[in-house]
């Protein structure tokens, strides 16, 4: 059992938990993820690691409720436990294993969209711990949905916040901020790391390609075991089929086939996709599709 030491709601449908998982806390690196399972009948749910405390043996997870399983998870309180937490899974971000002097020579831009702020945070924190000041753009739909702003401000060099509806700081998409920084303010970046909703990563990549900035994205597709065994998380990068769990989750964003990845994700995220799933999954349809809540 993996005890929850802290559980709080960050925004509507977005939750943060500190969980006891000593092996993972000792081994994990920015870029990696975990799989959690609530109880003996639950699903295995992949989640990003937002933070970790090696001394206390805890990891911090952040998740958004998207279906019956994550909604049930949101009800967990401090003192409750997960039956299973496994990880770290996937590969650490490239800069973690590269020569630090090389990394220090580069200018990094991090772009975080929505709940994607959670996996961006430990990367930015790692940068600060290694004496590297980075620019961070955080985008969300509205002010109320913005998460981890103060925490990010502490770690980032410059932080630019934008909301789709203009309810806080800048108004508009993250792509507009990227363009503003590069074209109007004359900033130069060697690497962009963009993590957020698939559509945001797609358009960020279109923008950075135009601006000639190599871009890394982190993908979080459907998966079962997370160790390479099931192949559910396959995506096309360039001409190759890759498994997000063992080859990723970070990939060259300019080579990812986002349209295919979105089609695969749409079966869980769109009304139509959910209806198709419901008919195909029959009695086993428990709301893993997203918001319908399942039949139970």
């Amino acid at each position, binding site marked *: 059992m993996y005890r929850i030491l802290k559980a709080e709601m960050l925004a509507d449908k977005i939750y943060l938990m500190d969980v006891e998982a000593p*092996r*993972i806390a000792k*081994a994990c690196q920015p870029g*990696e993820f975990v799989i959690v*399972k609530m109880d003996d*009948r*639950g*699903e*295995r749910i992949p989640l990003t690691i937002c933070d970790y405390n090696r001394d206390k043996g805890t990891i911090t997870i952040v998740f958004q409720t998207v279906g*019956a*399983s994550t909604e049930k998870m949101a009800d967990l309180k401090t003192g409750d436990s997960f*039956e*299973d*937490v*496994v*990880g*770290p*899974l996937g590969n650490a971000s490239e800069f973690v294993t590269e020569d630090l002097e090389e990394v220090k020579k580069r200018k990094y831009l991090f772009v975080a969209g929505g709940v994607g702020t959670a996996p961006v945070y430990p990367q930015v924190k790692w940068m600060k711990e290694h004496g590297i000041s980075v620019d961070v753009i955080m985008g969300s739909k509205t002010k109320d949905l913005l998460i981890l702003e103060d925490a990010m401000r502490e770690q980032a060099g410059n932080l630019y916040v934008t909301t789709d509806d203009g309810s806080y700081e800048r108004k508009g998409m993250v792509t507009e901020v990227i363009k503003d920084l590069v074209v109007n303010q004359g900033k130069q970046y060697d690497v962009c790391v963009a993590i957020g909703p698939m559509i945001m990563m797609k358009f960020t990549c279109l923008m950075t390609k135009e601006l000639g900035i190599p871009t890394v994205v982190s993908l979080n597709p459907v998966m*079962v*075991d997370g*160790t*390479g*065994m*099931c*192949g*559910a998380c*396959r*995506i*096309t990068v360039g001409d190759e*089929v890759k*498994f997000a769990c*063992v080859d990723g989750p970070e990939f060259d964003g300019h080579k990812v086939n986002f349209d*295919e990845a979105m*089609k*695969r994700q*749409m*079966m869980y995220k769109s009304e*139509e*996709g959910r209806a*198709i*799933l419901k008919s*195909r*999954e*029959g*009695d*086993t*349809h*428990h709301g*893993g*599709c997203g918001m319908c809540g399942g039949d139970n």
Partner: protein
Amino acid sequence: MDVLKKVPVREQDPKVRATNFEEVCLGYNEEEAREEASRCIQCKNPKCVKGCPVSINIPGFIKEVEQGNIEEAAKVIAKSSALPAVCGRVCPQESQCEGQCIRGIKGEPVSIGKLERFVADWSREHGIVPEAPEKTNGKKVAVIGSGPSGLTCAGDLAKLGYEVTIFEALHEPGGVLTYGIPEFRLPKEGVVQPEIDNVRKLGVKIETNVIVGKSVTIDELLDEEGFQAVFIGSGAGLPMFMGIPGENANGVFSANEYLTRSNLMKAFRDDYDTPIVAGKKVAVVGGGNVAMDAARTALRLGAEVHVVYRRSEAELPARAEEVHHAKEEGIIFDLLTNPVEILTDEKGWVSGMKCIRMELGEPDASGRRRPVEVKGSEFVIDVDTVIMSLGTSPNPLISNTTRGLDINKRRCIIAEETTGKTSKEGVYAGGDAVTGAATVILAMEAGRAGARGIDEYLSARD
């Protein structure tokens, strides 16, 4: 009684079992088992034993069955096998013990597998448990993976007095016995869990949710956690796909995913949270045991199922009994057929599968006749779900994170066959991680060899 024929084994009616996940074969009762045992002619030089990868004293245990000493029969088997209830169910007996049986020359061989299963089930039902050694020798061994090779290696070492901890990546132990082989062939609560519990009763600890290579490395186990030797039984690995257009469409699954959802996550039961796409018309591509398992799972979830295989029936690599059962249940075999493209609708879902007819040419490296495409014979099978069952390639998690562990061209770990010794001191390996995808019994044989190798290594260090 016709002495040339096996005593028939009771099975669920094909029509009934096609709609449930209960075990297909019901096994012998004591009377039937003793009658079947009487068919064994107790060869002086028993060929069946040579056909068994773990060399069970087959005439020995059969003799005890015939005389009604089932507990004694269990002891004979236990000397060689830690998982008899599993092996009696999933070993390819026709190409091993039963394939060598003298009775098989004129009639049917003795039903060795069903007798082994009977003995194992009887012992479980009568509460016979293996005895743990009175005290340990204080030496710690780590076993990676709780599948057939890991369980066997751990069990053998525990009997010798070692303190063994198994590290399992998934949340349930058992490896392929748990996530891969379906309930209707190998019941989990009834058969697999009790066999794992027997290994625990020998003193073996099992820590789940530990991915060696990620959660902890082999070097850390050896240098920081006090283990003096490690056995790698991490299993096969990543599912292979064909590389044809449309393969990433919604509705295309690996057999691994399909079976893991159903077996490990219990998606076939509506009181579990994990879903599974049942499909109305399902094509399973491949002809091995895993393909049969996936096909029969899809059938039980309500689909019309086609097994699409590029060679002919004679080359099907699956166990004869599985093919026979699949046919009885109504699986359709599209043989000498190979997919060339998966067709999709505008939403990215499977709408059909374009195939080409094949014919058999000259024998290839495997000794089987090579399938060759018949030009211009393309046609479309109307399916909404495709399950790829084409084998696996090794998982790189351990080899990438362990200093000094050599792998071969196929990226399998290199290990000596008789001892499991690898290129790294104190590290032994066996099972699918070494051989590529094979059978439960061969993995058990390798686990046994690894235990021998580790015992020799650690004994020599005293």
